[in-house]
């Protein structure tokens, strides 16, 4: 369906965007639903909100299941609120590939902030998107950023290998480890060393924290040299220990990004990913619409019957379009 066919959605999107900018939390929540469902409402809202975003510090929290991501987010909320900063949280959980259902349980550990006006927590199901985030998480971040939150925290699905996408979506990526989780670190792809801005050893009061730190430092020494040397910190998020230091390092990283053109670089990378994925989607939609169902079906059947090769089929569809 083309977006032009839903003028009501566009009017509603503009109204929701204006209300969200004015501080209406219910409008903000409804807008996030539209963003998750990729409706025309969301499109027209983002047309208004995109120029208004860019002011928030966006922090990504990623790590294996059980490393304590939600508990750390809760502890960060406490520290940030003590400093008077408003915070939005997006917590992503996996969807069942069979039913499409999901249990979104990250709020359980953040409920002490449930009724604080300076905190807005939103759970998102990944809805089949791989990589630790939902396909629409970056758009949701932009909406919360534009709505005026000082900090936006994105908590990924606990896959332990979601680093690439969270890096593109956030300014500062925190990779969480915890002792006693087996050979976790060896299992982590080398890629994580290139992308983590901060390493945190959570549950650092447990046996094995020293070993985790040695392994992280060892892997760091093997990684490509970077302008920013990611520090290895320790927290016991449950008790809030080490969280102020973590926040200080997050701020430090923010300063560093600003001083080294990093924010502009991040913004450009985010823009590229966003633009290219939208362009790809829109191009496919347009090519299919121009070709029409009969030609698409003929091409499909031809490839299946091996009377047509897939490259020629695509060339033919595109040249007709």
């Amino acid at each position, binding site marked *: 369906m083309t977006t032009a066919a839903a003028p009501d959605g566009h009017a509603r999107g503009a109204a929701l965007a204006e209300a969200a900018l004015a501080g209406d939390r219910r409008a903000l*929540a409804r807008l996030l639903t539209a963003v998750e469902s990729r409706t025309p409402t969301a499109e027209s809202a983002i047309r208004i909100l995109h120029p208004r975003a860019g002011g928030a510090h966006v922090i990504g929290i990623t790590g294996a299941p059980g490393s304590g991501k939600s508990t750390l987010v809760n502890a960060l909320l406490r520290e940030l609120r003590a400093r008077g900063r408003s915070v939005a949280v997006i917590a992503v959980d996996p969807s069942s590939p069979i039913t499409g259902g999901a249990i979104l349980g990250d709020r359980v550990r953040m409920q002490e902030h*449930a009724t604080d006006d300076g905190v807005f927590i939103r759970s998102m199901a990944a809805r089949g998107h791989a990589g630790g985030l939902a396909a629409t998480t970056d758009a949701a971040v932009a909406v919360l950023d534009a709505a005026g939150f000082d900090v936006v925290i994105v908590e990924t699905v606990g896959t332990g290998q979601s680093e690439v996408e969270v890096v593109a979506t956030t300014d500062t990526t925190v990779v969480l480890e915890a002792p006693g989780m087996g050979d976790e670190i060896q299992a982590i792809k080398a890629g994580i060393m290139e992308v983590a801005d901060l390493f945190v050893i959570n549950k650092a009061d447990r046996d094995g924290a020293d070993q985790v730190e040695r392994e992280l430092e060892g892997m760091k020494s093997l990684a490509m040299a970077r302008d920013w040397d990611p520090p290895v910190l320790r927290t016991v998020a449950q008790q809030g220990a080490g969280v102020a230091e973590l926040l200080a390092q997050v701020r430090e990283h923010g300063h560093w990004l600003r001083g080294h053109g990093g924010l502009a670089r991040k913004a450009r990378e985010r823009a590229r990913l966003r633009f290219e994925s939208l362009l790809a989607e829109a191009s496919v939609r347009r090519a299919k619409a121009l070709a029409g169902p009969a030609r698409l079906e003929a091409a499909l059947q031809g490839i299946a019957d091996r009377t047509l090769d897939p490259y020629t089929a695509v060339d033919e569809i595109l040249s007709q379009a």
Partner: protein
Amino acid sequence: MGPMSDRPIKVLIAKPGLDGHDRGAKVLARGLRDEGFEVVYTGLRQTPDMIVTAALQEDVDTVGLSILSGAHMTLLPRICELLRERGLGDVLVTAGGIIPDEDVPRLRDAGVAAVFGPGTTIGEVAAFLRENVRPRDAA
């Protein structure tokens, strides 16, 4: 066909009041997940304000309240009232747990659409929610 038509129903499962048993709520959360719902779970001992704020921020279609403490006649109407106050009067509210039959009419008057007693199957709850969740703006 718009993507909205495929949007899973989003449900908040909440435990108001002071009882410390959430096994039933968790079984329901998992069951509804398996029925294709997106289930937000907020844990034990939630105040009406916490529940309503979560419903608002999560923009859920429906709230399921599990209560065993006996305080349902004060807590459930209070939650319905708060939902209406915060502009969430279109959110479907259901309840389950230990609720005597004679209390059900007054709860319905207060805005609880259905009360599921012990022995209700997940399939029955899912079917009720699918039939009664109000269709949201399709754009």
